[in-house]
């Protein structure tokens, strides 16, 4: 091996480095960030003026501040839901349209490294957008009511949320040659996924409740005294795949849904010992761990989807050669 070959290679991800050092300087980035903040800021200012007036009249309570934060987080999550596919779904397809992907694939970069670079740069940019809105969320610090750690926890969940949506953007971008098609497919898939995973646990629990109801009311073969004979509460855990339920849980656990004076709904655990989950108690460890379980699941799904994208991107995937009809 020659000295040149022995020479250590630069391990830096070229795609990530390029997008961070060159593409990040483009005005487009600043404009998107500005638009996001311009969209959220009026709501924040409106609330702030409202809180200011209320406190001048001595009627401002923690409830108002809590709802301010809740609205802001949901608003931000909704905006991110719309922005993320638009940003990520062009990552690979744009390279295909510019015809730069082939050239990139002939370098020593593997498809997995290219995917990591694209995903990483998208994630950093989207995280920056989340961080850029922190001052608007942090308005509540003026009055107190939420700790900095809780705010970080919320931010972290939002980042996992966008990381999760981003991976589908990358996946469809790898799958298609057209950016518009990729964006449409990403929106479509993510919307269906969100709706399906949100509805699934309640459909399953509804099914169990229906059977229990039928058993209890018919009393055909045996006498049933328990209205909830079949315990299907664990089925609610299918909901951990839902980013919406996770957002509901994390906001409940950090801010709390102030529904009345001294009355607060604390995420998914609040559904225990109700008609939805009659068997699970309020100290059920599984439901209490809802958000961490969900974050791990989302991270795992993201990783698997990205690995799959890398496999699709590999131009010479598979080692076996097809049999050729030589005619």
């Amino acid at each position, binding site marked *: 091996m020659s000295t040149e070959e022995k020479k250590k290679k*630069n391990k830096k991800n070229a795609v990530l480095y390029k997008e961070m050092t060159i593409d990040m300087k483009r005005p487009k980035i600043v404009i998107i960030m500005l638009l996001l903040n311009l969209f959220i800021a009026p709501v924040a200012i409106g609330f702030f003026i409202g809180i200011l007036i209320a406190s001048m009249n001595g009627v401002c309570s923690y409830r108002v501040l809590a709802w301010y934060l809740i609205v802001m987080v949901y608003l931000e999550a909704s905006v991110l839901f719309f922005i993320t596919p638009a940003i990520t779904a062009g990552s690979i397809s744009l390279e295909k349209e510019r015809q730069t992907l082939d050239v990139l*694939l002939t*370098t020593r970069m593997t498809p997995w490294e290219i995917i990591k670079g694209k995903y990483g740069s998208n994630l950093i940019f989207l995280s920056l957008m989340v961080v850029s809105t922190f001052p608007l969320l942090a308005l509540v610090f003026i009055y107190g009511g939420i700790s900095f750690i809780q705010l970080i926890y919320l931010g972290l969940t939002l980042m996992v949320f966008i990381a999760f949506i981003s991976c589908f953007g990358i996946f469809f971008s790898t799958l298609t040659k057209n950016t518009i098609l990729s964006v449409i497919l990403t929106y479509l898939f993510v919307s269906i996924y969100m709706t399906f995973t949100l509805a699934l646990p309640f459909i399953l629990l509804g099914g169990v409740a229906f059977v229990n109801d039928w058993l209890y009311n018919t009393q055909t073969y045996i006498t049933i005294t328990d209205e909830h004979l079949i315990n299907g509460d664990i089925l609610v855990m299918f909901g951990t795949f839902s980013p919406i339920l996770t957002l509901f849980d994390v906001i409940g656990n950090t801010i709390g849904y102030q529904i009345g004076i001294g009355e607060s709904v604390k995420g998914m655990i609040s559904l225990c010992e109700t008609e939805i989950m009659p068997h699970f108690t309020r100290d059920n460890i599984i439901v209490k761990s809802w958000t961490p379980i969900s974050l791990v699941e989302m991270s795992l799904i993201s990783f698997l989807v990205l690995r799959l994208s890398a496999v699709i991107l590999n131009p010479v995937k598979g080692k076996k050669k097809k049999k050729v009809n030589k005619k």
Partner: protein
Amino acid sequence: MIEIKHLYKRYGRFLALNDFSLNVGPGELFGFVGSNGAGKTTTMRICVGLLKADGGEVLIEGKDMLKNHRELAEKVGYVPDYFGVYKSLTASEYLHFFASAYGIYRSDADKLTAELLDLVNLTNKKDTDVNGLSRGMKQRLCLARGLVHNPDILFLDEPASGLDPKARYELKEILKNLSSMGKTIIISSHILPELAEMCTSVGIIDKGHLVLQGSIEEIHRAAAMSSPLNIAVNEEQIDEAFECLKENPYVQKVTSQGSILKIVFTGTKENESELLASFVRSGIMVSSFYREEGSLESLFMQIVNTKPGKPEPQRR
């Protein structure tokens, strides 16, 4: 250096490569000629690991490209038949990006980029957006990109297509320069004379099959042989002349224009002399005997227009 063995590639029902085999030695400037759709790009894409063959293998320095892609990517440079440039980057940033994609450190990349831009005569354009470069400049920049990791082998897919004569000339000069540095260059085109001017050897592909390969001297000889042999005989002895030609194994086709016979003759100069001698022995009066000046274009056209199976001694 490069061994392509029995490659097959099918796109749906279309067989793009059909038992394609080729050998290119180290330091060669190899011209790869074929009409549109003959299989040039497919072959190149398989060679650089962008496409999987349905059968056969590509060995570079004895190693299978498919199995050792990452290792061989260091040895192979590829310039496709499109630019593939990031329009938002400057020429210098563009080369830096690809240098880092090959794991070259920034400190080394600075020097390397300057050298490459100098090699392709783009030093004065280093801070110009790639979008602002002319077609010829973009092509030279792409060539520089293909050289960024100092590969031993360079695949160029129709690099001169769409370039004006000046840009073509500049490109040729750069390629000759690279060849003199000892690099193996495989350059594709559908224009044989264009490649013949700079290549050391040439291969002609037709319908996914290599139909001719040889050094540039052999190709020129083949071109000379490909043109018809004109024999002017006494008009009354035309039938005898036909009889005489029928017996000659090198005669492929004979047409007559009055007393002039146009013969597709695949034999050597000696064979030509023997043919003339046979005419004389048969008592046929020959007033002229000469070959038309052969052109590479006519050779190419003759090869790609010939149906498979027809005897062609020069073919492989």
